[in-house]
């Protein structure tokens, strides 16, 4: 501690180390949060159902309450809806239909009616009369620390038997 440089260096390293420890404790405090999110998705209409590589266009009504996922250490929540179904070739196909970013807790309780943002296509012609699940996935992105991902699976959706 005999010179300016020595003291400045000691201050800098100690302050940055303590900052890292504070951020670690802040990230750890997230484990005390027990979230209880809810969601429901309605398929309002099947707009198109093409034969060329089997493409479907849906209108979806997505309602969700993800407010309990937010803590003081949350930067944003990334949420997306995926259609999951089984074919002869693959035991699980997942197609992302819609996604969005929720920047704060106020926006986390939402209702949106939209057509699918991304194409719902199949590698082949397996979608006629197909039963599928719509799963709402979310990624909670923290300000510091570990990202947490979870989902809600909604079952019971069926595609029409004929192309239109």
């Amino acid at each position: 501690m005999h010179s300016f440089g020595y003291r400045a260096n000691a201050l800098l390293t100690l302050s940055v180390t303590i900052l890292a420890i504070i951020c670690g404790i802040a990230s750890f405090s997230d484990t005390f949060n027990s979230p209880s999110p809810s969601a429901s998705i309605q398929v309002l209409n099947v707009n198109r159902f093409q034969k060329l590589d089997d493409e479907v266009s849906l209108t979806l009504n997505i309602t969700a309450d993800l407010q309990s996922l937010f803590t003081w250490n949350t930067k944003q929540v990334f949420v997306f809806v995926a259609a999951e179904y089984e074919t002869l070739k693959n035991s699980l196909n997942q197609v992302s239909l819609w996604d969005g970013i929720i920047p704060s807790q106020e926006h986390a309780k939402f209702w949106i009616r939209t057509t699918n943002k991304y194409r719902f296509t199949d590698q082949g012609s397996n979608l006629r009369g197909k039963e599928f699940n719509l799963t709402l996935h979310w990624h909670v992105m923290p300000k510091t620390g570990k990202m947490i991902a979870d989902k809600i699976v909604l079952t019971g959706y069926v595609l029409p038997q004929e192309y239109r």
Partner: protein
Amino acid sequence: MDWQGQKLAEHLLQIFLIAFAITAFIVGYSLASFQLMLAVYAGGVVLTSLMIIPNWPWFNKHPLKWLEPGEAEKYPKPVKEKEGAAGGGTKKKGWAQDGFREYFR
């Protein structure tokens, strides 16, 4: 700074940074604001740096008593006589030079 001052500076550094870190965390957690926590901590770092980096007078309360130049000349440092040393020779002789037997003579 003197020795006591250096010790004081180190103690102040550690105590203030840890105290500010704890207050910052408590304030941030209770008001649910990450930004507030960082702001309080940054303010604490700046305050601590102002307290310990400059050479304040309270760090020099126990100054060292250096020997006066007049006194030092009365007692010159003894010069060791070396056999076989060429010319004036060097004042210090490293143990690795010219064999260690010279050093242990």
